């Protein structure tokens, strides 16, 4: 797992070498958080990969929260009350619109849709919530780590000699210039 995930807390201990994703779930105070609470009191199990953030309403989720969460998490889940059940009338619908728009943008920026999902859960739906968490954890496990370092490394051109980063390339170029007239081999190197 990439070093960046360390901020979100250690990932659950990997069993049998399985990848254990770190997933952040935004919950609302009135429905989905209570569903998670219910799952707990009823001793239903859901994977420890999911960390909950309780907000008063799913409408509070600013797309910037999600952007920031992806710096450390492998996936982000948005949960809230069912339509017409929102404690704040229609804020869950606004959350839905933002979710749909944000997912389009994230997809264009390379974040797979499985990494950003949403579902509704009423305060009584502890079991459904646990089942949804299970499903999403498995989907993200199948995708693998978000791995920003790997993603950024993929931007390095194939022609770049391994180990030659931005600063090093310049240093190498300068070293070449300072060196005595090169043999043919060097020309081959720099043009490789």
């Amino acid at each position, binding site marked *: 797992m990439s070093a960046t995930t360390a901020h979100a807390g250690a990932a659950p201990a990997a069993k049998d070498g399985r990848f254990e994703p770190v997933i952040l779930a935004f919950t609302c105070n009135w429905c989905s958080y209570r569903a998670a609470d219910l799952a707990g009191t009823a001793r239903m199990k859901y994977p420890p990969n999911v960390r909950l953030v309780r907000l008063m309403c799913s409408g509070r989720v600013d797309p910037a929260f999600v952007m920031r969460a992806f710096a450390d998490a492998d996936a982000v889940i948005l949960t809230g009350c069912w339509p017409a059940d929102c404690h704040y009338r229609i804020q869950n619908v606004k959350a839905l*619109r*933002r979710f749909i728009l944000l997912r389009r943008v994230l997809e264009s920026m390379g974040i797979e849709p499985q990494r950003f999902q949403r579902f509704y859960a009423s305060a009584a739906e502890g079991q459904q919530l646990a089942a949804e968490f299970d499903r999403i954890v498995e989907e993200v496990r199948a995708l693998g780590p978000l791995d920003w370092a790997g993603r950024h490394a993929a*931007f390095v051109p194939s022609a770049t000699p391994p180990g030659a980063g931005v600063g090093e390339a310049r240093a190498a170029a300068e070293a070449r210039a300072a060196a005595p007239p090169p043999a043919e081999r060097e020309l081959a190197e720099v043009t490789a």
Partner: protein
Amino acid sequence: MSAKPRLAMYWAAACGGCDIAVLNLGEALVEVGSRFDVVFWPAVMDAKYADVEAMPDASIDITLFCGGIRNDENEHLAHLLRAKSKILVAFGSCASEGCIPGLANLSTLDEILDASYANETTDNPDGVRPVPAWRENGVTLRIPTLAPLLRTLDQVVPVDYTVPGCPPETKRIEDVVELVGKALDGTAVLPPRGSVLGAGHSTVCDECARERNVKKIGAFRRVTEIATIDPTLCLLEQGIPCNGPATRDGCGALCPAAAAPCIGCYGPADGVLDYGARLMSAFASVVDADEPERIEVILDGIADPVGQFYRFSLASSLLRGGREAMDQAHRGRASAPVGSPAANHPAPRLGRTPPSAPMLDVLGPQDHVPQRAPTGPEPPAPTLEPVGGPAR
């Protein structure tokens, strides 16, 4: 040493438009020339990097740095000018948020090079590609090495001020020049370090004369798909995606006044952590639909979501995996966390003690956002020594 304050201007990954905007000062430029000793400005005068390298540290009073950091030459100059300047200004959209060149961060370097050297429009039978160094007749020719991603200036070195705009409006540049001039005379004080200069603190909507009424949009359309645009009604309300709600004011709302939607060239307004995120919130809340299917249909009207929401600010988006991964991508060239006084770069010598108060940083250390207004304790402004003062 000359008694006049020393000014530098540089272009990294930029189009040169910012330099033109400064040249546009016209007569005021003569004033700049008589006030400042222009020591380095590649766009208008011959200059050698070696001359800058030979300058003592902190010997340039103010540097206007245009352009993002796309290659090792840009990066070298960013570090060099940071060290040589008392005040480093990220000038224009490219330096402050990446701008159009930052959109290339959606593509890998191979894709970018393919677009230039190996597509249908290219006549390149030998498949020639740029190489960092080439030896011909015993002489080594070099070109800069492209970096995997474009970074903003503040992602590479600490920046003192930001002047937004693509390019900054000439009138606002005049304001900045005047302010700096007054600061040099001791008749004005520069705002706290990290501030935005030459712009407002609100949004383009606040400057826009168009009328706003309804809060619902049933369909998004491109300007070209609309036969007649209402001359007085808000463009967004007419279904034209207009970026005014997230964009900093300062331009005078020029585009909507001309019936063209704001595309966001003045960058994020005060308090906006991620430009695209703020704009997505604004657009989504006016979508007139409650059912997912219907919402999707309306959003289909936004033809190019990333281009719409991040045309100027992609390189400064929060979605970049944090500094660590970014630094790793650039393989170990240590980048100072911006705004941190303990940044591993030579502290600018500013007459006063460098700022110790942290900048607005609610999202954790790797997400410093310089162009937002600081809340809480304000870092003191860098000070210019008055001309002919005791320090000289």
